[in-house]
């Protein structure tokens, strides 16, 4: 069912139409097959880039789409409703562009941004390490100054699109403490850089998540984004935007689960009636719909604040928390609506349920979101 959206402009309506067309043709028909085979959709991100979906919230002068977050996030939602892994990777790519777009020098922006925002270069985001996920300030991967650049040594973990991306927003230590982290635009391939085997995951299997092993690779000086020591601040401000992306992905996934459940509930009969006509099941669907709508409303509220230049960090955390918990609940209930069929791989809802779980974990676990929210209350 097409979601009835409130969009700010005619351009935005055209963009959403285009997104639905592309997603219906390029994502929906192949998603289940790739997820099951754990095969990467070669060429797909090229198409998304050509169509203009990989740089939407950045200025047109830089090669972006010049769209507000309110619109960009709804595009992500439509992608996620067809294929969560592709939507998440799109969100991560957009996040990976953030440091250069926001903190890059004019020369850096000119050199890289157009190709990144047009999707000719696909990006990953490399903050986490094996021992440092929630506690990002605890990373130890080192960037040691050498003649005309930095030498990188250490292990990064959990990189969405790892080994496939063309560049990574890399965070590594140039000093001690939380002001000792710096941000780099690392290339996808370099001497002294190797990637681990893709993790065997519960879901999102078509896009690899890998570790990266940095063994003395040298990054040129102009790959330092922002000032030395500014890295953690960059990482955290990027994540404020990134978690909005995840909130939108979660909402799209929940919408897909709701749609599938409604469809099934209108076909399946039990006790001589369609199951949708049993009040007990109808109420389950009603709660699912309420969860989807509230997820969308909270992320749009945060997005509109961001678009107006107002503080939105708290609202972004609320949105991530509400939307990903909604996705977990709605996808679980969708399996319930399908009964025994829901538990089989013949129907899509068990996949949705597996895909929802990770959304409560990455880009700041939901415990961390609560910390961010609660922090504002301490006087």
């Amino acid at each position, binding site marked *: 069912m097409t979601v009835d959206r409130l969009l700010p402009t005619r*351009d935005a309506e055209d*963009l959403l139409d285009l997104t639905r067309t592309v997603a219906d043709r390029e994502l929906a028909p192949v998603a289940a097959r790739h997820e099951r085979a754990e095969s990467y959709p070669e060429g797909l991100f090229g198409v998304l880039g050509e169509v203009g*979906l990989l740089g939407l919230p950045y200025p047109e002068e830089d090669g972006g789409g010049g769209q507000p977050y309110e619109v960009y996030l709804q595009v992500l939602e439509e992608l996620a409703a067809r294929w969560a892994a592709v939507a998440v990777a799109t969100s991560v790519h957009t996040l990976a562009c953030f440091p250069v777009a926001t903190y890059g020098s004019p020369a850096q922006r000119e050199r890289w941004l157009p190709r990144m925002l047009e999707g000719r270069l696909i990006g990953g985001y490399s903050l986490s390490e094996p021992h440092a996920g929630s506690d990002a300030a605890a990373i130890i991967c080192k960037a040691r100054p050498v003649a005309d650049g930095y030498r990188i040594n250490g292990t990064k973990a959990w990189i969405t699109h790892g080994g496939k991306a063309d560049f990574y927003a890399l965070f590594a230590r140039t000093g001690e403490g939380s002001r000792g982290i710096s941000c780099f635009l690392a290339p996808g391939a370099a001497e002294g850089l190797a990637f681990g085997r893709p993790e065997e995951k519960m879901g999102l299997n078509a896009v690899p998540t890998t570790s990266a092993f940095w063994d003395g690779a040298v990054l040129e000086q102009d790959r330092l984004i922002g000032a030395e020591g500014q890295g953690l601040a960059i990482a955290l401000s990027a994540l404020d935007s990134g978690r909005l992306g995840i909130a939108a992905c979660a909402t799209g996934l929940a919408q897909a689960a709701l749609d599938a459940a409604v469809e099934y509930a209108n076909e399946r009969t039990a006790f001589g009636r369609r199951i949708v006509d049993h009040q007990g099941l109808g109420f389950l669907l009603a709660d699912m719909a309420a969860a989807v709508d509230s997820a969308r409303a909270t992320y749009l509220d945060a997005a509109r604040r961001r678009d107006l230049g107002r503080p939105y960090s708290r609202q972004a955390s609320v949105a991530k928390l509400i939307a990903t918990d909604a996705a977990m609940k709605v996808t679980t209930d969708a399996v319930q609506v399908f009964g025994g069929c829901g538990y089989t791989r013949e129907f899509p809802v068990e996949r949705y349920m597996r895909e929802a779980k990770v959304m409560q974990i990455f880009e700041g676990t939901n415990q961390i979101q609560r910390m961010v929210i609660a922090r504002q209350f301490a006087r």
Partner: protein
Amino acid sequence: MKIVVCVKYVPDATGDRGFNDDGTTDRESVDSLLSELDEYAIEQALKIVESGVEAEITYLTVGPDDAKDALRKALAMGGDNAIHVNDDDIAGTDALGTSLILAKAIERAGFDLVICGMASTDASMGVVPAMLAERLGVPQVTYLDEVTVEGTTVKGGGTVKGRREGDVATELIEAALPAVVSVTDRTGEARYPSFKGIMAAKKKNVEALDLDDLGIESDQVGLSAAWSIVDTATKRPPRAKGEVVEDEGEGGVQLAGFLAAKKFI
């Protein structure tokens, strides 16, 4: 050089299409869009320019107000400008009349190459390209699976070359420009318009023309002047339930019998 691509705004083939009482197309009860088969013509025009041929691409449509949508979609895929011929007196025009209007508009715009889809997805007659070539007095090279342009100069000239795949032979055909070609759905996937293309298309020029502008009298076109009219139309019957063959050892034979009875084998 100048390429004119003819595009048609048609009722969505996936919708529930029908006719009005006078036998004309019912445009009210089903959404319309750019004929999918014309997307291949647009794609080939864009490919010709991308191959290095310097050309201006103009889209041309004859249709009601909303047909502008088809032109916007085409312009979003690429190309330079468009012409929309729209006149109340055009309603009910058949292929012969349409080819007259198209030919007049093409002559007015100037052209070296006219590219059409192989047929429209609504009437699917596939005769307009040939009629156009005749009216314009230029060669026609139709039903091409592959098309290229060579040897053009600023002064014009050059040739269009194409490959036509038949049941028993493959024909390699060429014609001196100016010419009219039509291309099939085997020429290669048409691109998606990009978001930037959609925004840019809004700024591209769409010229609106009526019959007067083209020097066509209203009695030359329209339902009353049509040589072919829809006499009667019957709704497609709902699809009947298929025959299920229970395989009790004789399934193969039964299947073959069924196919033979329907004259498939």
